[in-house]
């Protein structure tokens, strides 16, 4: 699986671009108040991480996400139309409009939930991995989380448990240098989060999270270890969050100069350059992919717009099985 075929590279390109286009569309629509809620955390700039990691997974592998979950879910194979419908609170959304951006998930592609609680997924993931192990499948669970989340108690407890029981988990820390407004050096006394793996006798590596190929290769290695029963790995992917923490964030804690640097590290442009240089694809092939994606997102918007709102009479079976109580 580790081999970089043209097809694989183009698939990753398509995924990254889909995430970017989806998120930019969400941003626009949020600006036009077409998306309810004010806590919409976008993945723009971080596309290479989810894409590289999920490209190393099988469809039946599990993926535990965060508040910044759209990119993870697209990379794991979810359909933009049902995602957009969810963000717009429609009955056709993956969560029937009950979840929204912070709780978006598609279980059929292995998504075990975005989460509004920072660090919550870090203890859920070992459970999914334990489940796979006890059920005798070789499914792997990937757990995304941020640099900010790496200080939560759940990080420590989750990694300890996963390593102790040699569970098939790949922990992926997306270090975008900030937990909301707080820069990394104000929230933890270390630079490299991968260093923390040693506390759990677990391999820890840091990769350039803006380079999808580097992310992919690291993920393949970690996924293979997990799949073979060799236990969990911690991957720190260093990347950048281009937008504010959430769409309503004025982002005043970062200087204009700092922000001006972001596009220089664009993971999508970087893969474009790699594709051309290494002969994986031509400019026009990439252009074709982009226009196909543009259309897909357009259709997703139409689907969301035309979908019905949920009925205000709540379905009791969503609260308790069989609608008890």
């Amino acid at each position, binding site marked *: 699986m580790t081999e970089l075929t043209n097809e694989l590279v183009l698939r990753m390109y398509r995924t990254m671009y889909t995430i970017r286009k989806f998120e930019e569309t969400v941003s626009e629509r949020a600006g036009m108040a077409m998306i309810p809620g004010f806590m919409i955390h976008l993945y723009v700039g971080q596309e290479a991480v989810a894409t590289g990691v999920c490209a190393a997974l099988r469809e039946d592998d599990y993926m535990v996400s965060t508040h910044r979950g759209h990119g993870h879910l697209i990379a794991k194979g979810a359909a933009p139309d049902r995602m957009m419908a969810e963000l717009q609170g429609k009955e056709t959304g993956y969560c029937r409009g009950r979840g929204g951006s912070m709780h978006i998930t598609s279980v059929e592609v292995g998504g075990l939930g975005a*989460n509004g609680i920072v660090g*919550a997924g870090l203890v859920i993931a070992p459970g999914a991995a334990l489940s796979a192990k006890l059920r005798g499948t070789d499914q792997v669970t990937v757990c995304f989380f941020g640099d900010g989340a790496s200080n939560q108690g759940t990080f420590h*407890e989750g990694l300890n448990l996963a390593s102790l029981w040699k569970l098939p988990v790949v922990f992926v820390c997306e270090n975008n240098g900030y937990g909301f407004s707080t820069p990394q050096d104000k929230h933890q006394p270390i630079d490299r989060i991968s260093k923390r793996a040693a506390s759990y006798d677990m391999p820890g590596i840091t990769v350039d999270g803006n380079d999808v190929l580097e992310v992919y290769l690291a993920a393949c290695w970690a996924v293979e270890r997990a799949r073979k029963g060799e236990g969990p790995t911690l991957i720190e992917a260093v990347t950048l969050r281009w937008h504010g923490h959430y769409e309503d964030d004025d982002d005043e804690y970062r200087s204009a100069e700092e922000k001006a640097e972001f596009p220089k590290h664009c993971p999508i442009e970087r893969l474009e350059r790699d594709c051309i240089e290494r002969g994986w694809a031509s400019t026009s092939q990439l252009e074709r992919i982009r226009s196909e994606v543009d259309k897909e997102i357009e259709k997703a918007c139409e689907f969301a717009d035309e979908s019905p709102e949920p009925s205000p009479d709540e379905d009791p079976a969503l*609260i308790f099985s069989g609608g008890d109580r």
Partner: protein
Amino acid sequence: MAEATQSETRNLAYFEAIRLALKEELELDPTVILMGEDIRYSIFGPTRDLHLEVDERRVLDTPITESAFVGAAVGAAMTGLRPVVEIMFADFITVCMDQIINQAAKIRFMTGGQVKVPLVVRAPGGYLNSSAAQHSQSLEALFMHVPGLKICLPSNPVDAKGLLKSAIRDDDPVLFFEHKALYFSSDDVPLDPQFTVPLGQAAVVREGSDVTVFAVSGMVSSALSAANSLAREGIEVEVIDPRTLVPLDKPTLLDSVRKTGRLVTVEEGCLTGGVGAEISALVTSEAWDDLKGPVVRVASRDQPIPFSPVLEAACAPTTQDIAGAVRKCLGKA
């Protein structure tokens, strides 16, 4: 005591009844797993050496990390297992409250029904011999206020077995509060592996016409003692054990109150915001015309639970308190 199809019973202690339920369900269903701290050793006994009798991979001692193993149970429940986790003392549930309140209780809903979370959290609560402020609490009332959680409070070995089996088979998260002081109480327990006690079905453990006493967990036996001594005064008390607070068997409760016209609630948790508050509000609103006087609540004092035996006894509700409350309810105090 619903679906018992065989009549064979054995005299078992409460902790043994729990053990039997766990063992049977582990054997019947390969997706059932147990996790918790020192459960193979088992401070109160229910799971002592259970791993030697069943598939040992499914009886897991965990590190002292309640958030991790309850969180892991949520993840396992979402992906095809039926985890039963033990919190060594109910008081420690505060350490993994997010996993219960924001995750387990809400995931079914937040995913729009894409997954279920069939998870049981076993946790012994209640007073036992000067266990003091952090090892004596009865916290069930907190969870009544969290939609998405079911709550069992078995007051005897038969219910302990039957309710636990229902809880494990249930597709929703269930908090299963055992009582430390009941572990060694015993009774004849059905041995049929298909015997269950359904969730949401109260037991009228004593019939009576004058006052209804709604008592939970360890307080059921105190309520019965009070009822027996009151009978000597000519007061006939009906004692209801809800067995589960969520779902709540309102019909049984309301029928009883409609008959007696009077209600006393009894619990070991503290008074303010307790189970009795909800029951009182509910019954008062739904059976107003039948009530002959206000609901009287018996509960622990509103204070941290003291270590000193003298103070502990003064803090906890007693048989005398219950009898006094019944008399007060009847205007005889």
